[in-house]
């Protein structure tokens, strides 16, 4: 898919959470861009800060614990960080939206699906009830929900998980937004339903050319629907690049190790090279490269100093001292 202008750009974003275990540096200098009609995959293990990055973008960090401490969030060139809550409300839903992970809890159990869908529509356009109802039906039809008129009257508990997630999708794109963040939207779904849902997201994107930030831990999903990938580890992006290139030649040792550690569908492997140890706690980060304690190439410098970001190919960057030998930018 051809990519248009940059719609969303994060510049050195830092977000902290104060917890009873100390200050957690959940997002610690994340920079990324997503273009119109493009899907960027944000990949990482649980607790690496993916979800917090997404919530920071919408300025919906858990209150009062979470706070953006530095950096910029540029939506079509406009910085969201200094915006007031009032201004953010006009932006949410209309210009940027999000699909949450768990369809079971994303809908309010005490209101009908129609009520919640109409509510989303009404935020950004006025109109008589009948017309909004018709729009809601149309929205459901677009996410391939059969018999939308009936479904609008249903309550969430009467629907299956896959169906609910479609409704959540319909609500998310009702704005219609220019940027959609999808936070592991298929993790809670069955394998066969997962593929249906991914296909649906692709269709929506083709139709509306929205920019999508797709958060996942599954390289299979990334390979399937993402144009570019950013790999996150302990609050930072360690490598980013076009999907095909990154899969063919990962440059950061973490990406390399992670990809090697995933068992393959298409070939039989005798023994997987595992990564020893485990990710660091985000309130006690090592001073140098976060991956250094587990990295087999780590040297003194890695332990001391966080590596700069080096270009290692066209649009392909890695934050690793070993990539320094490549032409720097």
């Amino acid at each position, binding site marked *: 898919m051809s990519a248009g202008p940059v719609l969303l750009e994060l510049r050195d974003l830092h977000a902290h959470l104060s917890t009873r275990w100390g200050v957690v540096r959940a997002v610690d200098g994340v920079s990324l861009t997503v273009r119109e009609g493009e899907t960027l995959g944000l990949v990482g293990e649980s607790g690496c800060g993916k979800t917090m990055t997404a919530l920071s973008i919408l300025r*919906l960090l858990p209150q*009062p614990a979470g706070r953006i401490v530095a950096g910029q969030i540029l939506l079509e060139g406009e910085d969201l960080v200094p915006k007031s*809550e009032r201004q953010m409300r006009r*932006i949410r839903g209309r210009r940027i939206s999000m699909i949450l992970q768990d369809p079971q*809890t*994303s809908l*309010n*159990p005490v209101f009908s699906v129609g009520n919640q869908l109409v*509510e989303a529509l009404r935020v950004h356009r006025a109109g008589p009830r009948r017309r909004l109802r018709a729009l809601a039906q149309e929205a459901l039809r677009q996410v391939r929900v059969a018999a939308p008129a009936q479904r609008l009257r249903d309550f969430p508990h009467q629907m299956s998980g896959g169906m609910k997630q479609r409704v959540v999708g319909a609500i998310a794109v*009702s704005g219609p937004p220019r940027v959609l963040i999808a936070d592991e939207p298929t993790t809670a779904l069955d394998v066969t339903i997962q593929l249906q849902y991914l296909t649906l997201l692709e269709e929506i994107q083709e139709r509306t050319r929205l920019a999508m930030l797709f958060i996942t831990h599954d390289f299979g999903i990334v390979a399937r629907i993402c144009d570019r990938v950013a790999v996150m580890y302990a609050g930072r992006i360690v490598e980013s690049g076009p999907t095909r290139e990154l899969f063919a030649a990962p440059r950061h040792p973490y990406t390399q190790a992670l990809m090697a550690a995933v068992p393959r569908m298409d070939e039989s492997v005798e023994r997987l090279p595992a990564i020893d140890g485990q990710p660091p706690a985000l309130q006690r980060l090592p001073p140098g490269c976060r991956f250094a304690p587990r990295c087999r190439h780590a040297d003194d410098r890695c332990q001391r100093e966080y590596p700069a970001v080096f270009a290692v190919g066209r649009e392909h960057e890695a934050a690793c001292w070993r990539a320094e030998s490549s032409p720097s930018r």
Partner: protein
Amino acid sequence: MQRYILRRLMQGAVLLVVLAIVVFALARVTGNPADLLLREDATAEDRAHLLKALGLDRPTHQQLLIFLKGAVRGDLGDSIRYRKPAVEVFFERLPNTVGLVSIALVGAMVVAIPLGMLAAVGRGTLVDRAAGAVAVLGIATPSFWLGIVLIYVFSIQLGWLPSARMGTPAHYVLPVITLGAFLVAGMMRLVRSSVLEVLDSEFVKLARIKGLTQTVVLWKHCLRNALIPVVTLFGVFFALLVTGAIVTETVFAWPGVGRLTYEAVIFRDYPLLQAVILLKAIIVLGVNLVVDILYAYLDPRVRYA
């Protein structure tokens, strides 16, 4: 739904019969009820006379049958103190209690719901702390003592408000505050914690992602969900108060069923106590049923389950 109500009614009936038997048995197991009625200087003849008058000279199982038969017909015996049917005495007093309790409950809700929501939204702020302190105090304050303190301050020292019995609207003020203090505390805690729970839910996050205003999120999504436990509590409180405003009514000499219960205890008016307990049980069961039906209306998950 109808089958559900029917089943509940059946269960209630069983419960009442069991309760009636327990009440009946307690009076017999612990000595002859007649002994409670006799003055200390009564003769054996007086006793025999009374036994016959009360039907206590028959075998126990016959007594039970007579008692249950009477109960079904709405006859729970005569009050010893008032010398008329206990049921009648109860229903004379009931409106006074319902009036007092309704005002206190509605008043408490008007105060507690917004306050609880405010505390939840401003979690950790001064408002929240103040509300928390009020709640903690309200729960720990013995209501009989609060009533007496209020009487001392507002009736005796300041002379602003009447301290006892019914009459003018002013008579309502102190008892309502006494009842309300506890209510406000309990309700506010509940509203706060349920709103907090809802605020942390994913669907509130989605509502905010939609771009809804804080007001809509609060008053639509939070309130409806948070009201569910409050409604349950409302019913429980109503039942508890109608039956348990004993202390407050005693302090303020309020001629309601609570005060009646107290009198029945103090004067050992066993038939009256028996009647009061059974009638109150019916009220409790009825209110609980209504609450459960209301609950099903508020929460669609229950409706079809």
